[in-house]
């Protein structure tokens, strides 16, 4: 934002002493105060607290299934609550529903656009949502009849003014949360397509979002090209906390299972952990040898492990408490673009620009 340093004429809503200069000065004071308040409570590092915790033993995970079928880069995936089905979306314009146990394709939809950057499974398992360069989020009910044309039943729900970067159902099939290249997030009613709430505050494209675990209440976190991660109140639309320590785009955000923290992955080649109650970054997961961006992150069920998919084709596994890398997983032949733990925590799935998805366990 560009601000003039000259005092401006007062308007009727603005008090006479609230000139631009005064407000700018107050803004600077408040920013310094925020930094000071956060610094005061920074009495120790997370990895210091965790020194007495047992280290993790040798960690071996292998590719157990490879899902082949997309004709171009896989951009997004999501698990069904039944722990076996997966929906994935690709630059090829297709959205595919897989049975991950058998690797069979159960449904396929061709979208009217290429670069389907977002997809999500409905909690009921009866529908999927997706979107991308079409600037929309559409919901497709899944039919038991495999011959039925899914595209015919498509329902357009969300409309943004730029690409759809991420979408997620809330705890029911009735509402969808979206993030967009237009710099906003939005909450929509699926049935009517009505906009229920919009979230303004990012200064550039929003690339990712994650809903807080249902026990912690109605909040979600978003990350963007403005290097900020924002935590939002879903009901009021207010940004309640904001974190700006990354040095580049934030590609992925994911809540810690307790809901008290979240992790982020960024083009600055680091993943970071932010604690919501301490209101600050509490850990950085990085190595000098890791120079490519992290595209996607997720936690194991206990929150002890953080999985990060990177643009150098690898998946790094981090000990969240100690800050050290536990394992590095090879297998993909191009960037890892998306990564999610299965609902029961026994495996995770990664999607890549190499056109495949892999199940690791």
């Amino acid at each position, binding site marked *: *934002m560009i601000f003039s340093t000259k005092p*401006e004429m007062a308007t009727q809503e603005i008090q006479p002493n609230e000139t631009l200069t005064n407000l700018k000065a107050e803004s600077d004071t408040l920013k310094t105060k925020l930094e000071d308040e956060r610094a005061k*409570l920074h009495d120790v590092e997370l990895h210091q607290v965790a020194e007495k915790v047992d280290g993790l033993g040798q960690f071996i995970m292998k590719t157990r299934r490879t899902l082949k079928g997309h004709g171009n880069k896989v951009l997004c995936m999501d698990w069904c609550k039944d722990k076996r089905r997966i929906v994935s979306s690709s630059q090829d314009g297709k959205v595919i529903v897989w049975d991950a146990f058998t690797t069979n394709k159960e449904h396929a939809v061709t979208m009217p656009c290429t670069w389907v950057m977002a997809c999500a499974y409905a909690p009921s398992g009866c529908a999927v949502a997706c979107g991308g360069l079409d600037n929309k989020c559409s919901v497709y009910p899944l039919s038991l009849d495999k011959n039925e044309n899914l595209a015919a039943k498509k329902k357009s729900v969300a409309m943004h003014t730029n*690409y759809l970067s991420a979408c997620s159902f809330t705890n029911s099939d009735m509402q969808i949360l979206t993030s967009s*290249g237009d710099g906003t997030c939005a909450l929509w009613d699926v049935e009517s397509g009505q906009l229920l709430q919009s979230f303004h505050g990012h200064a550039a494209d929003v690339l990712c979002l994650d809903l807080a675990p249902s026990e912690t209440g109605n909040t979600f976190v978003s990350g963007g090209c403005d290097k900020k991660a924002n935590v939002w109140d879903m009901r009021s639309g207010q940004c*309640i*906390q904001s974190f700006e320590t990354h040095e580049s785009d934030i590609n992925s955000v994911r809540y810690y299972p307790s809901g008290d923290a979240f992790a982020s992955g960024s083009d600055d080649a680091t993943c970071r952990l932010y*604690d919501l109650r301490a209101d600050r970054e509490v850990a950085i997961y990085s190595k000098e040898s890791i120079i490519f961006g992290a595209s996607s992150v997720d936690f194991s*069920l206990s929150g002890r492990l953080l999985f990060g998919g990177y643009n150098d084709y690898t998946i790094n596994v981090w000990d969240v408490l100690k800050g050290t890398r536990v394992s590095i997983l090879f297998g993909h032949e191009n960037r890892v673009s998306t990564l999610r733990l299965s609902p029961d925590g026994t495996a995770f799935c990664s999607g890549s620009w190499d056109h495949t998805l892999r199940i690791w*366990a």
Partner: protein
Amino acid sequence: MCDHRCFVYEIVKMSGSSNLVAMKKIVQQLRFEASINRVKVSQAAADLQQFCMQNALQDPLLTGVSSSTNPFRPQKVCSFL
């Protein structure tokens, strides 16, 4: 990821008041953020650690899951005597 352009949000300075309104919103947001209650990192870190420890045994990737319960792991071949 396709080339996403970063939007640079510029305030078009048709009149000074739009700048002022935007700036006032920023200040209000900062006042709100500055006022929240925070805990010490030592406390927050201890709680994160406690959550990990309490849930470690329920974390299949930490405890290791046998083939019989993990559908993705290959079944060991049974040999009949």
